[in-house]
C-alpha cells in the first residue's frame, strides 16, 4: 500500500514541472466547447424546438456528456504515451522495481494517479458547467465521480495494451479509430437514437455511452436507479477487466 503512495508521489514530483501545460486542457477547452457548441450551435438547436431532447436546452444536454467524454480523452492519453514511456523511454518502472516497490503497486499507483488527474479535470469541468448555468439538479455533483469511473474504464484496458508495445505507432490508430469515433457517436452531442439502427446497439456496448448517459441523467435530475446501476455495472466491468489484463501484461513486460 505504501508503494502505491510512492508512485503517486513520483508522479506528483514530475507533474509539478508540467502542470501549467495541462491548464488549457483542464479549463480552457471546456469553456470553448460549451461556448461554441453549447451556446452557439445550441442556439440553433433550441430555436427549432427541443422536442428531440425531451425539452432540455441543448447546452444542458451537451455539458454532462462532454464531461464524460473529456474524461475518456484525458484517461486515454494518460494511459498511452506516459505508460510506454515509463517502460521503454524513461524506464521509470524499471527504476522503481529495483527498490522495494512491487509490480502491483506500480500499476495501482499509476491508475491512482490517472484517477487523481481525472478528479481534478472533472471537478474543474463541473465548475465551468455551473458557470454556464447548464446544471439542473444537485445530483450533478455525482456526475464528477461518474466521469472519473468512465475515464478509468478506458484507462485500465488501454494501459494493459500499452504495456505490450515496443513503439508508439499504435497510439494514433487508437485515437483515430477508437477514441474519436466514440467521442462523436456515443451520445455526447446527440441522442444515439439518431444513429442508424444497425449501429445503435454497438453504442450500448461502449463504456462512453454509459458514462455519458449516467452523467446526463444525474445532471438533469432524472436518474433512474435501475438504469444507473446498469450503467455503473458496465463501467465497472470494463475497469475490472482492464485491471485484470494490465496485471498480466505489466508483469509479463516488467518481470523477465
Amino acid at each position, binding site marked *: 500500500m505504501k508503494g502505491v503512495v510512492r508512485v503517486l*508521489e513520483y508522479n506528483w514530483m514530475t507533474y509539478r514541472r508540467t502542470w501549467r501545460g495541462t491548464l488549457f486542457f483542464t479549463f480552457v477547452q471546456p469553456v470553448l466547447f460549451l461556448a461554441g457548441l453549447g451556446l452557439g450551435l445550441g442556439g440553433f438547436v433550441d430555436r427549432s424546438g427541443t422536442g428531440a431532447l425531451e425539452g432540455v436546452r441543448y447546452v444542458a444536454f451537451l455539458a454532462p456528456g462532454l464531461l464524460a467524454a473529456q474524461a475518456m480523452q484525458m484517461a486515454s492519453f494518460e494511459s498511452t504515451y506516459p505508460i510506454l514511456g515509463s517502460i521503454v523511454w*524513461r524506464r521509470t518502472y*524499471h527504476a*522503481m522495481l529495483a527498490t522495494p516497490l*512491487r509490480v502491483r503497486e506500480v500499476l495501482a499507483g499509476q491508475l491512482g494517479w490517472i484517477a487523481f488527474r481525472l478528479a481534478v479535470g472533472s471537478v474543474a469541468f463541473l465548475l465551468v458547467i455551473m458557470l454556464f448555468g447548464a446544471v439542473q439538479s444537485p445530483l450533478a455533483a455525482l456526475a464528477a465521480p461518474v466521469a472519473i469511473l468512465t475515464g478509468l474504464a478506458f484507462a485500465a484496458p488501454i494501459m494493459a495494451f500499452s504495456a505490450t508495445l515496443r513503439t508508439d505507432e499504435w497510439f494514433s490508430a487508437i485515437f483515430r479509430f477508437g477514441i474519436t469515433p466514440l467521442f462523436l457517436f456515443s451520445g455526447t452531442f446527440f441522442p444515439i437514437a439518431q444513429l442508424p439502427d444497425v449501429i445503435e446497439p454497438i453504442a450500448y456496448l461502449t463504456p462512453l455511452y454509459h458514462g455519458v448517459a449516467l452523467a446526463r441523467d444525474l445532471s438533469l435530475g432524472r436518474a433512474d436507479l435501475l438504469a444507473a446501476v446498469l450503467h455503473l455495472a458496465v463501467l465497472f466491468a470494463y475497469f475490472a477487466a482492464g485491471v485484470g489484463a494490465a496485471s498480466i501484461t505489466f508483469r509479463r513486460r516488467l518481470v*523477465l
Partner: protein
Amino acid sequence: MLPLSSQPLIHARRLTKRFGSFTAVDGIDFDVAPGEAFGFLGPNGAGKTSTMRMIGCVSPPTGGTLRVLGMDPVADGPRIRARLGVVPQQDTLDEELTVEENLVIYARYFDIPYREGRRRAAELLDFVQLAERAKSEVEPLSGGMKRRLTIARGLINEPNLLLLDEPTTGLDPQARHLLWDRLYRLKQRGVTLVLTTHYMDEAEQLCDRLVVMDKAKIVAEGSPRQLIERYSTREVLELRFAPGAQESLDGQLDGKLDGIAERIEPLPDRLLLYTSDGDAAIDAVHARGVEPESVLVRRSTLEDVFLRLTGRTLVD
C-alpha cells in the same frame, strides 16, 4: 577465505536462467562473502546481466538455488531489495527531474522521509563530486556524471550490498578512474561490491575475487592473481608483424618458434608467446632469424587468462 562465522551474502548453486528455450545462465555456482569485491568478467552475451538481475530480485531464477542476504529472492524480493543498492547496465535516471530530485524520490521508494532524503542526497552528491549540479537537469549531464549519479542513487538507502552492472562501460579513462576511486572507498567502508565488467583492468583493479563467465557458464574462479598464475605465465612476449602475414602466423612461421615459449597464441596481427622470461625469449626469436616489426614484453593479464580459457579475446 570465509571466516566461519560469516554467512555468504549471496549463495548460488546450479543457478539457471532461461528465456524460452534459450539458456542465458547455465547452472552456475558462486558465493559472495561480506566485505568482498566480487566480479563477473565475461564478453558480451555471457550472461552477466541476467545473473545480476536475478541477484537484484527483479528476475526470477528458472532453476537452482539462490539466497541473497540469507533470504529467497522470489518470496522476499521487496525485503531484499530494501537492503540492496543497484547500478543497472542501462541507466534508469529520470531525465525530467533534477539531479537532486532523482535522489530524493528514490529515497522515498525506500521509505526515507523527504528531509532525510535531501540530507543524504547532499552528502552523496558530494561523494560522487556532483554537488554543484544538484539543481540541474539530468539530461545534459555527461555519461560519466550520469553513471556517478546512478551510483549515488544506489547508495541512498545505505545498502550493505551494491550491485554494479558494467559501471564504467563507455566512459573515458579519466571518468573511469574517478569511479574506481569512489568504489574503492566504498569497499574500504565495508560495502560489499558485486560488479560485472568486460574490462580486465577494471576486474584487476577492483575485484578481490572473480569468476570468468563465457556462454552462460563459469569457466574459472579465483583472485585475479590466482587466475593469472593458474592459467598464464608470468610474462608475455608480443611479436607484431606487418599486415598480410596472417597465414604464416597461424602456422606460427612454419614451426620456427617451436619450443621457445610454453604456449604460443596467434592473433590476427601478432603472436603472443607465453613465457616466464620475456627477454630470453626475444633473444631466442632473433637467434632463429625471425624479424617481427616490433616486440613487446609485458606481464600477463586477465585478458590472457580469458584467451587461454575460451580461445577468444574479451573485447571484440
